């Protein structure tokens, strides 16, 4: 890069606070013209908050953002666009029912005597696509093209706005290898034209392929900005996960009782789904905890959902005690004695308007079928037992779950599965967003469950946690099983190496 002197976009000491949460604190970020700059971090690190602050979705609470040396205060993404900051969000944010030309020219149609001149507008749209070398019929509905093409149209729209800065938020998540190649070609040509590009992704190989510099965020704070060429992948992952290679030796080597032996033996054989997860094989038996490690997007959640039937696998089978289990819907999985505590508790886990008792009764009712309602007295008994056993902090069993704290919501979901007496429980990020006290409770609960003979599969991005309770660890990378660790091999070091390799 010739022009190192003057960054096109620069953020200094930016902070953003939501009630009770520091989403961003004192973050510096600078983007040079003609640079592709990766913005990296785990879930909740503050990547999207930073982008939203820069593009005006959220107003910033502290710090300055300057564009070409002038401070800016965009009130919404449209205003940021006018200033020259264009954003392509992860999900294509265009209108599928409108034609390609209209999507490109919306709010920018050329007008004559107050009415839209379609001829001129279509010409402008063609011009915009030509810069990306995209040759498609602009009069067809955008939705009739593949997601990849739609993504490229979104970029064409963004670039056509005389953008100085282009922000791409995980643009490659739904693209295949060839499509990514096309996208990268376009990114390189835009870079050559002097655009500054912010590239958010969780695919590290793509970071090394295309970016010049890397800024890493963690827990809302800045870890640092590095030259891509001089930062090793191991260092990068360490920065993202926030662990220096010093070993924490809290690993519990589980004294597995072989008495329960082969009972509740779960075999996952070549379970996979096109574009979601390459076939994975994994075994676990009662009284065993298998940890699932991997970066965001490595396929952790996807594996959990496939095993639970929340997504339908297109290859592979799951066996329980040597018998295949039908897993086409979660209902079948529940009947087989499986349980899933989903990653997104609010969205997929609790029913916030219902009370603690009703939430706890859900899974058991699902397993019994609707024809055999659970007597109210029994429900009350279960609920009270669970509130006591798990220490759910609620004034009474009818309190709407939505009003409880995150930790207590998680306990309610755990309680829901416990009363249905599952044999195999999948926990996806069971401790995310939970305060320290409840965190310890839940770890202890996981251990107790295991001692009772349950088979547990626990996905977590907190390596410390995985090391602390797992008997074995399956490491996922790029949507496939990268390696399996067991016994004394389970160290944070080894997991990080397996992720990075």
């Amino acid at each position, binding site marked *: 890069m010739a022009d190192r002197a003057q960054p096109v976009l620069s953020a200094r000491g930016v902070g953003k606070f939501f009630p009770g949460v520091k989403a961003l604190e004192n973050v510096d970020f600078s983007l040079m013209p003609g640079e592709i700059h990766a913005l990296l971090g785990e879930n909740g690190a503050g990547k999207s908050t930073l982008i939203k602050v820069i593009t005006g979705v959220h107003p910033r609470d502290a710090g300055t953002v300057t564009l070409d040396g002038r401070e800016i205060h965009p009130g919404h993404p449209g*205003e940021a666009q006018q200033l020259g900051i264009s954003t392509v969000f992860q999900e294509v944010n265009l209108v*599928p*029912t*409108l034609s390609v030309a*209209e999507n490109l020219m*919306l709010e920018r*149609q050329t007008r004559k005597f107050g009415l839209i001149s379609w001829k001129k507008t279509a010409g402008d749209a063609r011009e915009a696509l030509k810069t990306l070398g995209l040759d498609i019929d602009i009069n067809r509905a955008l939705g*009739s093209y593949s997601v990849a093409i739609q993504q490229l149209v979104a970029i064409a729209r963004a670039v056509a706005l005389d953008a100085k800065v282009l922000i791409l938020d995980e643009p490659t998540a739904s693209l295949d290898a060839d499509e990514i190649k096309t996208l990268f070609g376009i990114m390189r040509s835009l870079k050559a034209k002097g655009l500054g590009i912010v590239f958010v992704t969780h695919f590290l190989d793509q970071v090394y392929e295309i970016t010049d510099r890397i800024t890493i965020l963690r827990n809302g704070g800045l870890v640092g900005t590095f030259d891509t060429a001089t930062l090793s992948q191991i260092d990068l992952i360490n920065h993202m996960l926030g662990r220096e290679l010093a070993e924490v030796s809290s690993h519990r080597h589980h004294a597995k009782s072989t008495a329960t032996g082969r009972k509740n033996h779960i075999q996952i054989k070549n379970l996979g789904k096109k574009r979601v997860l390459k076939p994975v094989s994994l075994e676990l038996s009662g009284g065993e905890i298998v940890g699932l490690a991997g970066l965001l997007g490595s396929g952790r959640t996807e594996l959990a959902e496939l095993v639970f039937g929340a997504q339908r696998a297109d290859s592979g089978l799951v066996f329980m005690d040597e018998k295949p289990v039908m897993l086409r819907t979660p209902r079948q999985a529940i009947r087989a004695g499986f349980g899933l505590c989903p990653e997104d508790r609010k969205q997929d886990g609790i029913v916030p308007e219902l009370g603690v008792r009703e939430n706890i009764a859900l899974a058991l009712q699902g397993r019994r079928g609707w024809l055999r309602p659970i007597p109210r007295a029994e429900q009350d008994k279960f609920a009270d037992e669970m509130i006591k056993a798990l220490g759910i902090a609620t004034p009474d069993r009818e309190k709407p779950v939505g009003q409880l704290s995150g930790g207590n919501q998680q306990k309610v979901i755990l309680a829901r599965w416990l009363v249905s007496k599952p044999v195999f429980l999948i926990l996806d990020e069971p401790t995310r967003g939970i305060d320290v006290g409840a965190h310890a409770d839940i770890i202890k609960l996981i251990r107790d469950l295991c001692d009772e003979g349950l088979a547990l599969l626990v996905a977590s991005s907190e390596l410390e946690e995985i090391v602390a309770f797992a008997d074995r660890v399956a490491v996922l990378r790029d949507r496939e099983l990268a390696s399996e660790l067991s016994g004394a091999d389970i160290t944070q070091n080894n997991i990080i190496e397996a992720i990075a390799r």
Partner: protein
Amino acid sequence: MINERYYPLLATLAVCALLYGYGMFEYRAFSDTYVLGNLLTDNAFLIITAIGMTFVILSGGIDLSVGSMIAFVGVLMAELVTGFGIHPLVAVVVSLVFGGLFGAFMGFIIARFDIQPFIITLAGMFFLRGMCFLINLDSVPISHDFVSAFAGFRIPLPGRGWLSASAMVMLVAVLVGLVIAHYTRFGRNVYAIGGDRQSAQLLGIPVERTIIQVYTLSGVYSALAGVVFAFYTASAYPLAAVGVELDAIAAVVIGGTLLTGGMGFVAGTFFGGIIMGVIQTLIAFDGTLNSWWTKIVIGGLLFGFIVLQRLITRSFSGMRAGAS
């Protein structure tokens, strides 16, 4: 290859041509322009209402208040003209302004507080219908020279038919609707919001303002329909136009507009309204069939069009509404 976005419109045109062709083939008198003139006149208020409804449905909403608006405007005009002796043209302006303001108010509540348009416009429907009875309990004539002149004004068509004033107002309303939908940014923004509201917001479209404008437009169009209806019948009745909101929705859907919004044509709505009129006329010509057969045929057509639309949108990738 024909653009798939035009399939519903082509289907509407085909159905319209088939029905009309069947009529001409079956009954000699059907090919007379007399039938066409009557078709345009009798369905003028319905088509005008449906044009306003088209914008609402394109934006992803619904407006149930339009039938009551027609009745209310009629009662209001009767009161102003017969009761207060105000010139009908002034009453028309008052009615249109009222329709726009009422629509804008509903639109404001819908957009600002993000409330389902169904429930707000349902409230509007009950409110206006009740207001009719507050002004007047009975059917009253609207007698004024201007009203008689309006009803008598007609341009002869070749053959025995003629184009009535109602029909002309309707045709102008359709043309204005066409221009708004296809040649203004407001019109295109309505399509964008109906196609994907969240995206529209991120593309920098003033979503809230556009939604308010959509319901304002629907209010004005339904008030205009009320005016045409009042002049056409030369009377006002609080229970007039009950269920017209549903007929208008049917005309819009048969006209090829996607009920979930984002796709459709004002021209389609015009032909949708004509189709409904043709079915009615065919059943009248037949003479042996009960007039309720109209509803049965329209029900069948609606079903067919909804299935057609589903097939077209299912081929789209990245539709948020579809299963992922």
